[in-house]
């Protein structure tokens, strides 16, 4: 068995009296897609935020390709190859689509203390940015991000994550708020991407989860109550009782 790409050990996060992450252990192996499911308030988004560096855990450790990153700042983790898409769409509204993605390219090309040359006509930035937009299927790249539909903005987020050349994609409900048609398209897209990227996927759409995931971890009240192949999870009576039964 290969060493895990991401490893979480005994992670704890509390908000006042509320326990969001409760001595959690889990891992993501290279090339694998791990889906994280669980009822609302199970602590999925807080976990993603701790992995990405938006939140600092109270105890425990996070390792990314063997390096401890528990207290590393978010931008440092991003440069190591951890890319997150947000549950609530998070883009730069006043920039164009291509500028949004070009910023992600720019970030991995080193510092941005370049004051004179026009960034929008710099093919080292716009080239990879357009490629990423093409992969996610977004056309008309010079539209402002504030003008595109919700579904397209989710695609834009994904393009920004891809432009970071990540080693692990942290996708927080990439299909949230999407119509049926957009959702199907996103599932197909993720299915293609999963050949090239390791992913951790938080999603409520069970069809998408069972279609995409290699393994599924079920989170309830900050604890992983089960981890296994999709068919195992579907059959697990404990999971059915705690989660799937409610649907």
């Amino acid at each position, binding site marked *: 068995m290969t060493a895990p790409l991401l490893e979480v050990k005994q992670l704890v996060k509390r908000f006042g009296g509320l326990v969001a992450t409760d001595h959690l252990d889990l891992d993501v192996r290279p090339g694998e897609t791990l889906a994280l499911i669980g009822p609302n308030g199970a602590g999925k988004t807080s976990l993603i935020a701790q992995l990405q560096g938006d939140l600092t855990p109270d105890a425990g450790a996070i390792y990314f390709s063997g390096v401890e990153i528990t207290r590393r700042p978010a931008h440092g983790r991003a440069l190591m190859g951890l*890319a997150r898409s947000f549950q609530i769409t998070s883009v730069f*509204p006043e*920039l*164009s689509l291509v500028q949004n993605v070009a910023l*992600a390219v720019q970030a991995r090309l080193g510092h941005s203390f370049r004051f*004179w040359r*026009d*960034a929008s006509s710099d093919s080292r930035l716009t080239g990879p940015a357009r490629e990423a937009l093409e992969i996610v299927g977004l056309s008309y790249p010079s539209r402002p991000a*504030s003008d595109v539909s919700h579904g397209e903005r989710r695609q834009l987020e994904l393009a920004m994550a891809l432009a970071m050349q990540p080693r692990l994609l942290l996708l927080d409900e990439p299909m949230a708020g999407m119509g049926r048609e957009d959702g199907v398209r996103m599932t197909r897209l993720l299915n293609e991407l999963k050949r090239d990227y390791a992913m951790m996927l938080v999603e409520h759409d069970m069809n998408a989860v069972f279609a995409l995931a290699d393994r599924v971890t079920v989170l309830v009240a900050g604890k992983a109550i089960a981890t296994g192949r999709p068919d195992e999870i579907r059959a697990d009576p404990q999971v059915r009782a705690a989660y799937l039964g409610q649907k």
Partner: protein
Amino acid sequence: MASSPASYRPSSDMMAITVIVAVLAAVPVVASLVGDPFLVKIATRVVVFAIAAVALNLVLGFGGLVSLMHAGLFGIGGYVVAILAFHADDSSRLFDLFPGTTELSIGLPLAMLVAGAAAAVMGLVSLRTSGVYFIMITLAFNQMLYYFFVALQQYGGEDGLQIMSDLTLFGHAAIGRMSFYYGCLVALALVLVVVQRLINSRFGMVLRASSQNERRLTAIGIAPLRYRLTAFALSGAIAGLAGALLAAGQQFISPAEMSWVRSGDLVVMCVLGGMARVWGPVLGAAVFLVLEIVLSGWSTHWQLAFGLLIILVVVSLRGGLIDLLHLVGRRGASR
């Protein structure tokens, strides 16, 4: 606030900058035609404050940082030039070390350097905070600078500091009304072009992105602090240049120029003109200063009207005069 910044076309902005500079360049001609030299004096003031407002807008409009300490930085620039001239005048030494000078080719860069360094130091403290904290801290720093110069009795204290000797630029007399005006205009043109390039560079993209979504920027791997700090120092240096030009032009600088109300005025100029474009604050400075003159000649209670006008702009003209221009342009086109 911006109408549609993504449709930002650098070429049309360069065009706008060219037109603005050309119009300003024609003012002395108009002044001599109508025989009113006072016009050049007003225009000089407009150009100088336009430089300061453009500097502020770099951090305000593009960096989203509501700084209320720019009048202080502006004043520092003015005092650098005035203090150098003061020591040149009585042949004494600054800090018992440096001789003074009336040469602007030394005074202006030094003014930028000192103001930029002050902005960097104070920015380091204020930029670690955000929101209301940032606004209040910059306001407090502005007052610190103000009281500092009020207390500097050696350099005139509250009464300000007169520049007694004639300033020169590369050895030539620099303060003839016409030559000084055109000198300031060249400075404004340079500042506009530099800032225009800057906001479309990689650096500028990071700065603009940091004001729109700081969390996102961090998540893609860019920590905004050092970019903001650099922008703040740069903005301070340009504000210092403007202050130095003001002091040189009127041969005088006083703490009154750096009161926090002046800082507020600079913010109003940016918002009034329009913060979405580099050249917006130039329009704002022109309208603000001309209005100030017109209204104050009209009534002693002109500040009442001025205050109401500011409120009106906030309530109804969110994109500033630029939006008004767009509106007029669209109506003209549809006709």
